[in-house]
């Protein structure tokens, strides 16, 4: 009995240490964002919240183009998410529910493209964007990724079990067009799968860094990840302002996490464990 309680204590202790490791950086971010620069340099360091969070927030939002970058990122993330939802669900639905020649080969090909490491194309892609006049434009961020293999795969897997063939047949009998069947019958049933794909795509776009770094050259068009590194260069000695920007940029994804963590975690594990 004693041995058991000892191992229970060790287990609980390990988990609590792990939880602190996960949460502390968030806490420290808020602490630093609420202090002045001189307070941050103090030794011993202040471990509790200070009173300058609002002041720092106002400085970051008014004296830099950070607020503009925030709005830009909302635009980019929302538009690309909507396009991904449409094109991926249409193709995923087609693969799951329609019969056509070459379907198997086309789908295997689609899966194979997922194995290509993303970074190997950045140089030629950049040059192509230059030819097309898309350097500095959101087209370069949104269009190449608006139909992606992962999302199509994900929707197809979900679709196969979720939509009975009989419903589709019935819709056809009632004179519903193929697209109409997808739109009026497929989409409502696919809602849970779509909500995961939406969260996943939105977070991906919100956090995207490497490609925007290469493509966006005009500060007025910066997305938030670029504005953050810009802020770091601008206030490299004024840590509270840099970290306030970091905090502001993190709030949207934290809110999404707060409301949708279950869907997000379930979607990620489904995708991994099924394969």
């Amino acid at each position, binding site marked *: 009995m004693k041995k058991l309680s000892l*191992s229970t204590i060790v*287990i*609980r202790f390990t*988990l609590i240490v*792990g*939880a602190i490791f*996960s*949460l502390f*950086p*968030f806490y420290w971010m808020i602490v630093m964002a609420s202090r002045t620069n001189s307070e941050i340099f103090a030794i*011993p*360091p202040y471990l509790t919240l200070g009173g300058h969070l609002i002041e720092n927030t106002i400085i970051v939002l008014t004296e830099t183009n950070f607020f503009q970058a925030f709005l830009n990122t909302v635009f980019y993330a929302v538009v690309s998410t909507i396009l991904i939802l449409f*094109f991926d669900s249409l*193709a995923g*639905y*087609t693969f799951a529910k*329609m*019969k*056509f020649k070459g379907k198997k080969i*086309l789908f295997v090909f689609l899966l194979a493209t997922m194995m*290509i*490491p*993303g*970074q*190997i194309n*950045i*140089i*030629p*892609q950049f040059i*192509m964007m*230059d030819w097309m006049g898309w350097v500095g434009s959101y087209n370069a961020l949104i269009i*190449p990724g*608006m*139909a*992606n*293999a992962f999302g*199509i795969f994900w929707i197809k897997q979900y679709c196969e079990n979720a939509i009975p063939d009989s419903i589709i047949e019935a819709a056809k009998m009632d*004179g519903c067009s*193929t*697209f109409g069947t997808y739109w009026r019958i497929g989409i409502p049933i696919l809602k849970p799968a779509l909500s995961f794909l939406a969260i996943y795509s939105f977070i991906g776009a919100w*956090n995207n*860094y*490497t490609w925007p770094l*290469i493509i966006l050259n005009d500060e007025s068009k910066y997305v938030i*990840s670029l504005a*953050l*590194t810009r802020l*770091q260069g601008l206030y490299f000695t004024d*840590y509270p302002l*840099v970290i306030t920007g970091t905090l502001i*940029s993190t709030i949207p*994804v934290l809110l999404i996490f707060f409301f949708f*963590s279950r869907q997000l*975690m379930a979607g*990620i*594990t*489904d995708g*991994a*464990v099924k*394969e």
Partner: protein
Amino acid sequence: MDDTINDVKDKKSFKDKYSKISEKATPYIFIAPFYILFLIFGLFPIVFSAILAFSKWDGIGDVQFTGLENFKTLLADTDFWLSIKNTLIIWVIQTVPMLVIALVLAFLINLSIVKRKEFYKTTFFLPYVTSVVAVTILFGLIFSNQSGLINAVLELLGKEPIAFIDSPFWIRIIIALVGIWQYLGYNMIIYFSGLQKISADYYEAAIIDGASNYQLFTKITVPLLKPIILFTVMMSTIGGLQVFAEAQVLVPTNATAEGGALTIVYYIYQTAFLQSRYGYGSTITWGLVVIILIISLINWYLTSYRIKGEDD
């Protein structure tokens, strides 16, 4: 009811030919966007990049074909080899501890004596949603040379402060730590859902036979999770070998291979986008492709070897 069926029949005979053709074409039109985008933005760039790898080009003048010149340069390029070394070190010191700890945590949370499973899962997973830039800036400040929390603690303990960011040894550890913090929970929940598919009977039988928690972990959990472990290893390999943002945000300028932060993708970025050497940058890219292929083959070899071993 009869009326509707007749209506449909009338419609069908009316536009019979049209509907037959369009019915056949429809699925291809629905899946076309992906394939069109892949041809333009996926396949063509690969071909283009292969041509560039044998060329000299600054992006403005003509593309000069230089044969194997770039590859000769590459093999003799000490920065390239050091960038491989940096990348591999960061990859190993990130992936190995992260996956081991993730597996142990998943195992512990799955134990029946642990309460609040959802709380732990959610808490560990939370860092996954944050942006790599935000996390890197935060960690950069925690380990900052001037006023970082860690150095403040060292000073309080009477120790010398450490210049973490400038040290080739420490910078790799910090880059790895950023990755561990972000992806530990991601891997943990994947392991956890795999664990839940393992029948409790196995554990109960082993417990009756007097197995300790450690034995349960090594004799039941790890062997049965092998496919999922391999999945996470592959994901971490593809991601880890392309590490860039962490290094570039921590050391935004003058990254040198000796500094420890120059990873392969960072070197590609510097060569192509800061020095406009698109040809040589593509050559380095193909060097990276070869490394990813070699490591994937090793992974594949280990997998098939293990599966054979299980059959015996």
